[in-house]
């Protein structure tokens, strides 16, 4: 046996960092890849449906407009509120920042900082969920349900699938947070916080893409005149 291996055998090491990344980290990355495939499938399906959609003509503020994807509803209002969603996007990005700061605190064995920043991350996620629920309620009230047309079906599917990830993430982080309250993860054993952070950043990353492709990209209208 090599000297290092002998040394390792003597020390009775819990070898959770064999190589450079722990098992948990590699496992989480692989899971995130499978999740990325799921979201890619949904977003590509959305793109295909949108490309094949017939142009829709609606009256918007007295003007006739033609859209490839009915961004404006029959009542003339835009279906999706971009300003409101921009705030939600900003909150999610902020929660990603607090997550990294929480990991940073854990790495520096700062228990108080870890609990604070992780708590803020959870609050950010919860705020996002509330915003999503509010948006859904508002849309359904206007009759824009999942059954309405292609656009709403893909909208609710994609954002709903993502919202489910946010909910799972909030639950996951809360469990970690409660463990932190009991002193875990602030003694140099920050691996589980890092892994939870990977999931949370993935949730944020997906939202960045969803926000762009589902909310921002469809905003193309061709005015046809009064």
């Amino acid at each position, binding site marked *: 046996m090599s000297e290092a291996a002998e040394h390792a055998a003597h020390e009775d*090491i819990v070898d959770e960092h064999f190589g450079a990344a722990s098992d948990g980290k590699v496992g989480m990355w692989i899971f995130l890849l499978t999740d990325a495939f799921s979201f890619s499938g949904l977003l590509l399906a959305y793109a295909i449906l949108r490309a094949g959609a017939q142009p829709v003509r609606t009256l918007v503020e007295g003007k006739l407009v033609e859209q490839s994807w009915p961004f404006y509803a029959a009542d003339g209002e835009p279906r999706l509120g971009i300003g409101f969603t921009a705030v939600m996007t900003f909150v999610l990005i902020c929660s990603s920042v607090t997550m990294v700061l929480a990991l940073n605190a854990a790495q520096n064995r700062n228990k108080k900082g870890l609990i604070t920043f992780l708590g803020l991350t959870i609050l950010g996620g919860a705020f996002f969920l509330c915003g999503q629920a509010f948006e859904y309620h508002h849309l359904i009230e206007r009759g824009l349900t999942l059954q309405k047309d292609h656009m709403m079906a893909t909208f609710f599917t994609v954002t709903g699938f993502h919202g489910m990830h946010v909910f799972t993430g909030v639950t996951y982080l809360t469990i970690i947070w409660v463990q932190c309250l009991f002193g875990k993860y602030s003694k140099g054993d920050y691996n589980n916080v890092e892994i939870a952070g990977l999931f949370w950043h993935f949730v944020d990353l997906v939202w960045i893409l969803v926000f762009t492709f589902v909310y*921002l990209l469809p905003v*193309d209208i061709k005015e046809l005149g009064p």
Partner: protein
Amino acid sequence: MSSEKETIEEHDDDSDSEPVKAHGHDHKDPSLAHHAAHGATKAEIWRVFFVLVVLTGLELGVVKFHIGKTPMVLALVGLALAKAYAVAMYYMHLKGETKIMKFMVYLPMLFPATYAIVLMLEAIARLFGHRA
């Protein structure tokens, strides 16, 4: 005594909460170089945040100020990918991981990327190809 309690607590927890022992040495010595390999500095964190906010602002600007359909699409896709890259590289710390780990993430994502490109080319060819 409080110090006794501390030791007992440490041993009662499962192996995960014991001071991490890896690479054959105890992590109790705060070697900054080692930590740098495993985490982002605070300055880096805020810098990336600033970049993300700016990119988001640009995205909203592109939508608000009508710059034409094709430039808008290209700009939005580019900005979104840039943001995704920033989050993956710095917040998920992919930049500090080993080469093989990065490979493990990039390689599978080539599949959806290829599919997306093929779909776009097909759509362009189908919609605009006949007007040659």
